[in-house]
């Protein structure tokens, strides 16, 4: 699905600001609710909860003192490889061959970049790696070691990392919801140490009543345990979008890198928070 052109993007942004200024703050219900998350929101979910913990240097504890570990790997013998971490409807990958902010042909160790499946129909299936971490994991190098500048050592980085699309139109996903919330646009993430839990704020949250989008709220966010959120996905849209992420920081010293993240519309269950 194409991103909007610049003029429409600007008009949409101004319209959103005007509507949000008049919208009430979300007063969330207790407990889990049905949430339909749009591609822009899912871009940040795929970035923080799939992409970063799929970096093998993080999984192998090399970033433990800074940005934490990975919920996909507790140890070389106790990890999620080959195990279910999500609904069978959900798949996720990194693919540098696609035309996005994360496009490249070779990584900075000279390895050809290629598509790496992270979740294949619900089963965790692989990490992004460098030559050294591939050796530790007993895997083939997959061309994911990249530096932000020539004077930095390469770190393992996402490319175009996203949830794969399904076949359901997003309108149908919303229409099937008796009561729930439509969560649109990512804002600010906070994730737990191994990214096994997250709270991500949305730009807009709409109430869904009897399959129709209703009232708009601001200052809403989704809180969930990662595995629980992915396992409860019961609908995947056909509206994949890749969103440019221009400034992902990682490492010490910090390296800032651009990439793309995204996904289609998803439906799951999670708690909501207001302020």
């Amino acid at each position, binding site marked *: 699905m194409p991103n909007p052109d610049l003029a429409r993007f600007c008009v949409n942004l101004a319209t959103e600001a005007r509507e949000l200024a008049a919208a009430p703050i979300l007063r969330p219900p207790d407990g889990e609710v049905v949430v339909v998350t749009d591609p822009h929101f899912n871009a940040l979910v795929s970035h923080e909860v799939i992409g970063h913990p799929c970096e093998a240097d993080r999984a192998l504890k090399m970033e433990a*003192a*800074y940005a934490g570990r990975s919920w996909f790997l*507790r140890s070389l013998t106790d990890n999620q490889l080959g195990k279910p971490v999500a609904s069978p409807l959900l798949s996720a990958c990194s693919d540098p061959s696609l035309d996005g902010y994360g496009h490249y042909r070779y990584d900075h160790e000279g390895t050809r970049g290629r598509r790496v499946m992270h979740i294949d129909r619900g089963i965790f299936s692989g990490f992004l790696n460098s030559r050294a971490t591939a050796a530790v994991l007993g895997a083939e190098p997959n061309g994911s070691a990249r530096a932000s500048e020539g004077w930095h050592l390469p770190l393992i980085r996402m490319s175009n990392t996203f949830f794969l699309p399904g076949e359901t139109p997003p309108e149908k996903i919303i229409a099937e919801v008796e009561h729930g919330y439509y969560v649109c646009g990512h804002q*600010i993430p*906070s994730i737990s140490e191994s990214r096994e839990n997250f709270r991500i704020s949305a730009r807009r949250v709409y109430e869904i009543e009897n399959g129709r989008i209703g009232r708009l709220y601001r200052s809403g966010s989704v809180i969930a*345990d990662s595995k629980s959120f992915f396992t409860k996905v019961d609908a995947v849209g056909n509206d994949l979008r890749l969103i440019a992420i221009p400034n992902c920081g990682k490492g010490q010293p*910090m390296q800032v890198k651009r990439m793309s993240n995204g996904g289609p519309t998803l439906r799951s269950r999670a708690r909501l928070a207001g302020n």
Partner: protein
Amino acid sequence: MRTLADLKSFTREAARILAREKDLASYEIYCATAEHRIARLNYTSDIPSRGLEEFKSLHADGFQLRIAMRRDPHEVGAASEAGDFTSDSVRDALRRARSAAVVDPHFPGFPSVALGRKPAWSEKSDLARVGDGAIAAAAWDVLHGALAAFAKRSANDRSGASRIEHPGLIIGGDVSVIRDRIAIFNSNFAEVRIDESAHFNASVTSIVESLDAKGTAGALGDCAAAMRRAARVLGRDAVRRALALSHGARPASGKFRVVLGPQPVAEILNYMVMGSLTTGAFHAASSAYHAKFGAPVMDSRLSLADDPAFNAGAIRRRITCEGIPTRRVQLICDGKLVGLLSNFYDTHRLLTDEHRAEKLGADAPAKLDFDARSGYRLGEGGGRRFDASPGSAGTNVVMRARGGVTDRELVRAVGDGIYVGRIWYTYPINGQRAGDFTCTVTGDSYLVRGGQVVEPLAPNCLRINANIADVFEHPLAVGMRPHPATVWGSPEAYYVPAIAAGSIALAEVAPN
């Protein structure tokens, strides 16, 4: 790194070149050389690792010109050049600054503040010259201390819990030295102004995965002896704290009375408060204290200041990156917001803002000034960058409390609740102005019952969902002494007390 004499000499020569240009109304030359040298710890007992990684460093030196044109003193341009300190590069940068010039109606000119007396603490830090060998030796000391503490504990552990075959011991973190030198001249100054600073920052995280335990330790300071002293104890302390926290409790979600230790208080100040205490934030109407200047914003026992001359402070600076002598800036006094961090441009812009009365609020004094004592041009890691624009930043952020109590009395004030020793990934979840934040409790934390610490808390088992008002407006009690605390990536050093808060919302996180 280039010497101060080199920077001064080049700045003087560049000023001569610019002074001959008839179309310039005013100008500024700023030179900086900065280094961030990093020895990273990376030890894992059950995964191949190197213990200490290859040295990493960032090194940047160069200069920046800013010019204002005679035909319109609000027409300003800037250009920078890396590494090339020659007359030709000055002329080339001047050509680029001219072609980049745009009219900025807010441009206030360049500062003309007199230099004044040299402060008493102007002696140079020996960290300005310390070599990589000393930094690497300090990092190995951290690692050896950590491994020795773990081995000793395992040998003494009758239960055998820490003697298992695959303990999953992780020692991570780094020992870093950040040092910089600057020279600056503008057409209002009589002479080139120079400054240099250096400090170290060390943080260690110890995780014992088989025990689900995590402990941390950190230190910062302004001399090599302090770095060596810290290195001898940090690894040991981090491991001991981790081992003391094995198999901790996982409380259910709810509202709790909480003691926030110095690191959480520093982290909340860094990510949630300091950004709101700038003239830029008030101008942009993005401060959490919007319309509250002069009004109470914290408990009346609390005061907060930025002090580049703080005796125990790691970050000591004599002049800002705009050439203005530094000075202590009182930000919050007895709970009232009384000052803001500012640079020269933002001071002028806020004071001439037609909406300033609304943005500052009814309690703001009629006669206002925001001294531009915090205008720094910083890069990654907090060193001074030649190509950065002046922003507002602190140096040593010091929080003090009237009527402070001991750590034991803080825990007693909570009664039944939680002691939070370390938080992580703190973000303004609904934007800075809302003051809402979320983060996870990652280690060094305990359950409190009957006013006593009774049981460790599992790392990463709780998420905090709160507002800065919950922490700072009505604390149950405040610690009596500020403790040093490091915040990863922050340009500031923090010296803060622990705070006991009455009602903080905590949500449980499922075990991984």
